[in-house]
Each structure stands twice: as C-alpha cells, then as structure tokens.
C-alpha cells in the first residue's frame, strides 16, 4: 500500500515539475525605467523600460506606460505587447505624446496579456 501511495505522490510531483518546466509562461519584471523629456517642442516623451523575464517560459506580455503629471494628477498612457523569451532581458522604448508637464513614469507589465 505504502509503495503505491509513494508512487502516486512521486507521479504527481513529476507532473507538477514537468508542467512548471515546459508549460509555464513568462514572469515579466520591470528592472529599470528611465524617462527622457522631449528633444524638441511637440516631440514625444521617451520612456526606456528594461524588462526581465524571470519565468521558466516565454510569452506575450502587456506593457503599460503611464506618465503622471504631478501638478494635475492626470495621466497619459500607452500600451503595447511585447514578446519575451525564457530568461530574456529586453529594452523597450515607448514614445508617449503628451503635453508639457512635470511627469513621473509608472510602468505596469502583465502576464498573461488581457
């Protein structure tokens, strides 16, 4: 009886490990964010985001960049979908057209993509 139970438990653990190893998607993490003001009047703000995939697999992720105007609290946002491979670190450059202001960047990244 005990060997059978142990065998079943081992099979369950093996299945879980294989599942995690081969079927999981990305786990994106925002490693760094850098905001550059427009180079000229009317040009977009440039947001550089370093994304790192800490998951065992890859996949498409949703990236949302928000610029929050510290004076009014209003936000300007831009979303894009990024493909990440297993273990990949990538630099994403988002150009956000926004009126002149005192902005603070906030980056949200989600997996699975909505």
């Amino acid at each position, binding site marked *: 009886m005990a060997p059978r139970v142990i065998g079943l438990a081992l099979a369950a653990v093996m299945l879980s490990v294989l599942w995690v190893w081969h079927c999981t998607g990305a786990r994106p993490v925002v490693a760094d964010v850098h905001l550059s003001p427009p180079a000229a009047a009317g040009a977009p703000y440039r947001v550089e985001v370093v994304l790192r995939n800490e998951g065992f*697999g890859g996949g*498409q992720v949703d990236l949302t960049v928000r610029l929050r105007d510290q004076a009014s609290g209003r936000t300007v946002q831009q979303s894009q979908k990024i493909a990440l491979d297993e273990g990949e670190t990538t630099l994403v450059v988002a150009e956000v057209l926004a009126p002149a202001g005192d902005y603070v960047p906030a980056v949200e990244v989600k997996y699975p993509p909505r």
Partner: protein
Amino acid sequence: MTDIARHLVREPSVGNPTEYAARVLRLALAYVGLFVLPLVGCGLLIWQAHLLVTLTQRSNVETLTLLFFLVFFVYLATLSAPGALGAARIAYYALLVRLGRDRLAVERRKARACGLPGAGEPVAALNKALERESQRGQPLCLAVADAAGSMGSLEIDGVRLWHRDARRDGSNSLLGFFVEQVNHVLQARGADAGLDVLHWKKIQDEAAEEYLSFVRFARNLEQHLGTAELWPRLILTDADCQELERRLAAICPALRDEAFLPDWEYSGEHKLPLIPEPLGLISLSRSETRVDPVASMGCAVLVVGAAVAVLALLVVFPPWVPGS
C-alpha cells in the same frame, strides 16, 4: 481486492481500540480539511479573479468553470462546517487533558456534551445469527460503557445488530468494530468465525428489513420444527461477552469524540470508463454497500486538495497562452 475494499472503504481501522481512536481523529481532520481547503480555494478564486478569468478566456476554457469551482467550494465548506465544529470540540477536550485536567472528569464532560440518545440508532443485518451460550434463543445485550458513562448498548437479536441509545446519529463504524472483534474473539479460541455485515439499515432500509424478516421467518420455522439450526449461527461464551464488553469500553472515549462529528453513511460506486462518454460503450464499475465516512470524506479532501493545488499552481506559475 475484497480485503482492500474492506479495510479502505467499508470498515477501515476497526481492528482494535487504538485503530478506532486513530480513525476518529482522521475523520475529524478530514472535516477540518474539507472546511479549510474550500475556503482557501474561494480565497484564491476571488483574489486572483483577473488572472484566472484571463487564463480561461485565452485558453478556450469556459469561464463558467470558475463559477462552478466557486459553487463547489462554497457547497463543501457549508457541508463540512458542522464537522469542523465537531473537530474543534474534540480538540478542546483533548487540550483540557493535555493541560493536566483529570481525564475521567473530561470524559464525563464530553459525555454530557454528547447529549441524550438521539433518534438515529444504527442497525446492521449480519450474515450469521449470534447467541450467548447461556441464553440460547434469547436476544443478546452488551453494554457500551466505561467509567465516564454509558454510550448505549449493543443488542443482537439473531442477525439483527442494533446500537441502542446511541448518542446523536450513532455510528455504523461501531457495528463494524463489534463484528471485527467478535471474529477476533472467536478465532482466538479456535471457534468458527466469519461474521460479516450484509446490510446497513441507514443505507439500505428496505433491503435490510426484507433480509431481517426473512431470517426471522427462518428462525421461527426452526423453532416450530424443533430442528437444530436452519440459519447459521455463532455462539459466544460468557467469557467472550465479557471480553467484547471490555473492548467496547475501550473505545468509549473515541465514540464520544465521534458523536461530535456528523455521520454521513452512503453506499459507493467506482466507475472506470474504458470508452468514455459520450460513447460510453464500455465502463467497469464496482459498488460497495457502505463507504465509511473516513473513506468518503478522505476522498473528498483529496479531490478538493488537488483542485486547490492546481489553482495555486496556475496562480504561481501561469501557463503559456498564445499571444494576440
């Protein structure tokens, strides 16, 4: 297979008083698990609703499945709440003993907390009649009591085994324990044994009554004809009865604990579809007349545990889904 079915499904852990006490503990833990795990599942479903809904929608799984799981978890938690409460009461009395209170006094408190005998008095129909050597043809009565008080009595009238004055709903497991102990006692003195339960009245009311009436007819005919034995019977000596009463007394504390827990008695069926639905051309099945609550609740805990584990796995390691 029959032994596995008996020891795992029908009458698990009825070999001796220690096993019986461990069985009650396992039943209490099963109710706790069946109460806590669904709550964890509900928590996961609500906390990670966005993620799980996204996963279902992007992986071609019906989102309604999540609602099914939510209803399933709420249903099980509601169903097992009285059992979890009973387990808490058992833990409370066990804690009192651990804290150094007098064990007998605690047992007496437990006996009072169990309440008066209820309407549910378990009855089992045996394959062989049981009689006392000194009282042939008479019903046999064995006390189920210890120093802390009575937990009723076992009455055996031919093949009818009845737990009289059982607390709350009583327990068929006590009857299973008794049958096992009779076999042990008879085997120990080299007598024929092979006593078994054929019907449980709580589960198969009509079949049990039909069988009991038939045996009653056979025994009446036996008396009328004056023959030695129309229906097979086993004879217990006075020493056997004393030994059985001693063993019944030993499980009284466990019986009091068990009285705090719901006693859900069901028959069971295991189906193995060789060609699954919707064709369903061939399927194997095996049924058991009784599934002990430890087995049924234990299986339910495993199923709920597996469901919660899969949900947790999906949350911690979201699966790969195709991009849009």
